[in-house]
């Protein structure tokens, strides 16, 4: 077990009704960083998170969480805060009741901090859980997680349905949480703009498989968006056009950066946004092939932004084209 990893999934697989919900899922996050788990609805993000948290059994592979194998000791949950897109508290509880109910379960519960956070987030202790807006409910769950001094925050689609201002505020809260180098965040979302600001590492998941995982800059560098006229963009030998979209006015696709040289000269090649990568990967066909450079053990390299050395998450297990 590696103590410098917040978590690691290695070859994790699980089935639902005989079909694979996750297949050979491998990625890891060094302690102190934010990982964005990106995928369309139904891609397997929630299933991955449930396996990671020990809330769901997995048939193959292994999972390491904060230095323990999953399923691990129950005490591990003292260090993990889980924020979903909804509360999982009694709707008729007032926020003060929620504290009274949860406090006995956590050794390091800090009631003063809970009240401070509610105050900071503009939440009233007398408010009922069911009366909170979605944004406020997410803030409440963050307050709960921070009050029991979690070291890892796991967010599962917390921003879906939130307005941009609240999403920006949430990014600020996560930024503050990460001031402690022992804190880490897993942030599952299909809204890629959330990760533009806070994501250090990204994992792209589609149909229960990891498409690619790495630092945000590596992922952005790994692909290019190519655009051409209605008939100018066709798949040359040796290159794959990922998620090719044809419209009456033009065509657009994602291509791996090293394959851009194989394309003709009459196409426009640009750096993609995270959203473009996510959209094209989600739209691609189901032919699969191993991604070049996926073999070999993950090395250790400085973090692209901070220069800190951290165990590097494994690069893509395979890429689907």
């Amino acid at each position, binding site marked *: 077990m590696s103590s410098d990893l917040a978590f690691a999934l290695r070859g994790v697989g699980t089935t639902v009704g005989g079909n694979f919900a996750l297949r050979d899922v491998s990625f890891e996050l060094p302690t102190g960083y934010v990982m964005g788990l990106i995928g369309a609805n139904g891609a397997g993000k929630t299933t991955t998170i449930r396996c990671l948290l020990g809330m769901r059994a997995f048939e193959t592979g292994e999972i390491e969480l904060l230095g323990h194998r999953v399923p691990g000791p*129950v005490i591990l*949950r003292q260090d993990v805060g*889980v924020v979903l897109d909804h*509360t*999982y*508290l009694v709707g*008729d509880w007032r926020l003060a009741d929620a504290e009274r*109910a949860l406090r*006995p*379960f956590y050794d390091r519960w800090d009631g003063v901090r809970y009240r401070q956070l509610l105050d900071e987030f503009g939440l009233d202790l007398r408010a009922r859980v069911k009366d909170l807006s979605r944004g406020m409910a997410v803030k409440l769950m963050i307050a709960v997680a921070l009050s029991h001094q979690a070291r890892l925050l796991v967010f599962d689609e917390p921003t879906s349905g939130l307005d941009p201002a609240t999403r920006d505020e949430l990014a600020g809260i996560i930024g503050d949480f990460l001031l402690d180098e022992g804190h880490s965040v897993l942030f599952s979302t299909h809204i890629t703009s959330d990760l533009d600001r806070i994501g250090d590492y990204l994992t792209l998941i589609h149909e229960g498989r990891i498409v690619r995982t790495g630092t945000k800059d590596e992922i952005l560098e790994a692909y290019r968006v190519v655009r051409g006229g209605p008939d100018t963009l066709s798949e040359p030998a040796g290159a794959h056009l990922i998620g090719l979209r044809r419209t009456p006015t033009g065509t657009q696709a994602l291509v791996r950066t090293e394959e851009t040289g194989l394309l003709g000269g009459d196409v426009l090649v640009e750096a993609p946004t995270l959203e473009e990568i996510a959209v094209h990967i989600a739209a691609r066909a189901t032919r699969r092939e191993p991604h070049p450079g996926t073999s070999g053990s993950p090395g250790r390299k400085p973090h692209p932004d901070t220069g800190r050395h951290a165990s590097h998450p494994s690069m893509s297990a395979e890429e689907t084209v």
Partner: protein
Amino acid sequence: MTAIARMAVLNLRTVAPYRNQGLVLFGLIALIFAEKSPVALVPALVLLVIPQIAAYPFLVADKADLETLYAVLPLPRRSVLYGHYAWAMANFLATATAGTALALLIARAQAVPFSGRTLVTMLTLSWAIFAINVAIQLPLLIRFGYTRISILATTMPLALVILTVLQLHLHLTITPIQIWLPLLWVAGVAAIMTSAAVAITADQRRVH
């Protein structure tokens, strides 16, 4: 506080916002049986109130996704399950205590004889009713959740309890009651322990 006790307290806090409904039900049944027979008060409360209160955390859990909360809290799964039994047991103790006090007061006010032997018989029958009900109800609720099983979980045990009481009554008339009382307490404990073991298996196959 042990993990099981913490879970039982969490159930108490879960139903606390709805305490008035439970109190109204308690009061209504107390009112009806106070007139008819103070001796039947506690068995009636146990038969009609406890199945509702013991199942209420499951109702709230279905609405509020408390299964996720249980999975996130640093709480072994077995403690969650045993905590439901502890919660039901606490309900029995509270209902039996309050009901007995009320029954004694009513009996005194109505000048109805209420001997120690009657009291022991009343509590033993109440225990048997409670044990049968909980032994059937909780594994069903744990396996299927309240939404899928509410009617079955509350009416089937009720029907079985009524049948058992009727059956018991027939036997009690022909058998010296002292023989039955210890047996009922032991059988109740055995039923609950067996039920808890079944609940653990049921939980592994639960449908939510």
